[in-house]
């Protein structure tokens, strides 16, 4: 009796219960970032602000893993010391953007009869206001600095989030399960909290994890316009934009901070997924 297995149709999912290699790597990277945030001195190999103009623009070497920058500072150590600032901008700006976006979207999608016109229009006004101008205004008014950059980036990304979430909410609010919950007499807050938001959360999670990297990039764009972090603060976005001038002569100035941003985004996405997988099963 020969038993032959029929192939499944869709590429099979990983077997449950085993941690994937990707998740493991992402976790390790996250730990590394955490260490860099909390104990930068231990993780770094040099003082991030120690200049050595004579050693400027030297490529990666055992002494300087990521090379040195235009002032001879150790790029690796600057990347390490920049972690806290960059993650602050990434996380806080994304949090601001998402929370604001979520509130706006919920108001827009569930404004109700009375609020419908005014709230929706107000939300639209915020959407319509160019994000760049918003960022510029915040910086011009409040002066440059990490907090300002965070707020500026958060504010200017909120409308995008709001827009996506709103589209998502509109689809979900007419779904059968939301109707079923209404028929059960559950109050809107409960429906929103238990059905609508969690179901809108999948794309939201992607947004959030992507947002971390994007916020840092946004901040670097502000640096490009000359309005980024205060020197000599190490911050990935500012390092990127400062290193851009030398992209032809010293590639390591942009590639390593850029890589950190990308890796952070990837790791947070992978971890976010893993978390929802665990959460979704329980």
């Amino acid at each position: 009796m020969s038993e032959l297995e029929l192939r499944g149709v869709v590429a099979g999912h990983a077997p449950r219960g085993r941690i994937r290699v990707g998740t493991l790597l992402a976790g390790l990277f996250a730990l590394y970032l955490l260490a860099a945030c909390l104990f930068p001195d231990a993780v770094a190999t040099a003082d991030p602000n120690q200049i050595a103009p004579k050693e400027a623009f030297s490529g990666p070497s055992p002494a300087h893993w990521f090379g040195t920058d235009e002032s001879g500072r150790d790029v690796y150590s600057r990347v390490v010391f920049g972690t806290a600032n960059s993650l602050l901008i990434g996380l806080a700006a994304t949090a601001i953007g998402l929370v604001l976006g979520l509130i706006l979207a919920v108001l827009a999608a569930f404004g109700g009869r009375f609020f419908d016109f005014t709230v929706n229009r107000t939300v639209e006004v915020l959407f319509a206001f160019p994000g760049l101008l918003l960022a510029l205004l915040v910086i011009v008014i409040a002066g440059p600095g990490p907090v300002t950059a965070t707020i500026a980036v958060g504010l200017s990304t909120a409308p995008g989030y709001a827009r996506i979430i709103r589209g998502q909410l509109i689809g979900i609010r007419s779904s059968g399960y939301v109707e079923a919950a209404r028929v059960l007499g559950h109050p809107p807050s409960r429906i929103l909290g238990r059905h609508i938001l969690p179901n809108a959360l999948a794309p939201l999670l992607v947004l959030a994890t992507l947002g971390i990297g994007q916020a840092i990039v946004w901040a670097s764009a502000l640096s490009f316009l000359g309005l980024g972090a205060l020197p000599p603060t190490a911050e990935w976005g500012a390092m990127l934009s400062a290193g851009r001038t030398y992209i032809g002569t010293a590639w390591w100035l942009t590639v390593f901070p850029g890589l950190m941003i990308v890796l952070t985004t990837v790791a947070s996405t992978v971890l976010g997924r893993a978390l929802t997988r665990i959460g979704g099963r329980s």
Partner: protein
Amino acid sequence: MTPGSANRVLLRLAGAVFVLWAVATLTFFAMRLIPGDPALAILGGPGSQASPEALEQARREHGLDQPLLVQYAAMLGRLLSGDLGSSYALKVPVADLLAAQLPGTLLLAVCSLLVAWVIAIALALFSTGAGRIAASVGHGIELAGAALPHFWLATVLIAVFSTSLGWLPPVSSGDLSGLVLPVLTLAIPLAGFLAAIMRESMLDALAQPYVLSARARGESELGIRARHAIRHAAIPGVALSGWALGSLLSGAVIVETIFARPGLGRTLVQAVTVRDVPVVTGVVLVVALVYVLMTLASDAASAIVDPRQRAQASPQEVGA
């Protein structure tokens, strides 16, 4: 039903006018809030050694000596009569300036949006089904794409396609070949973003019974994603497109700077830098207008992609 839909259109229009008004108002007061004297902008920028008489005269001429509310009313009056005013710094009518800047930026933004969609859909189609490795690689590309700074991408694209290969001009040359690199620069990160969002909804959609039913008809994996799942997955992205275009318009500044393209983004940043209030207001109004139009379009597009949204166009009594 007809009076109802006529009402809806009217409401929508009123909404659009409201948005434009509010945006103009916000800009007006925000520009007063920031430090810097607009009268200086009129007299050759903040570094000018303008005489007191000249400053006084400039203020009087532009009504800057009036109380704020009077100035505000005057601005609204001008806007209502369709007059965007004259640039403080450039001394040309803002309308002319915008007419010259808008087409280039709009072309850039629209092309970028379209190219981004093409790339995003291709990514989503080819990396969601085929094997774990391909999926991971595809996902990695998306995430990296979404996390690429424009200026870095632009510089790399120039280094590869202009300096090394010599295929494309590094800066705008006025023809289509000059549009390729700027469009790619804007499109690649947006594509990564769109694709990453699509992927989630796509995976959800692929678990649905109608997908099984399509398989039972003999639909291929690609066909399933292309004909079924992608539409479900595209819903959030489509909703985003109107906003994306608006933000591309104002956010094009980096690309416009690097590729030396005249455009709204540069105009806006420059105008903010020298406090050229009429130009800032003009650009903001244009961006808002494009946004309003695009929202209408993307709502319509969403309704095509997802008819459920059409049914919900009027507010339901979910919340209240």
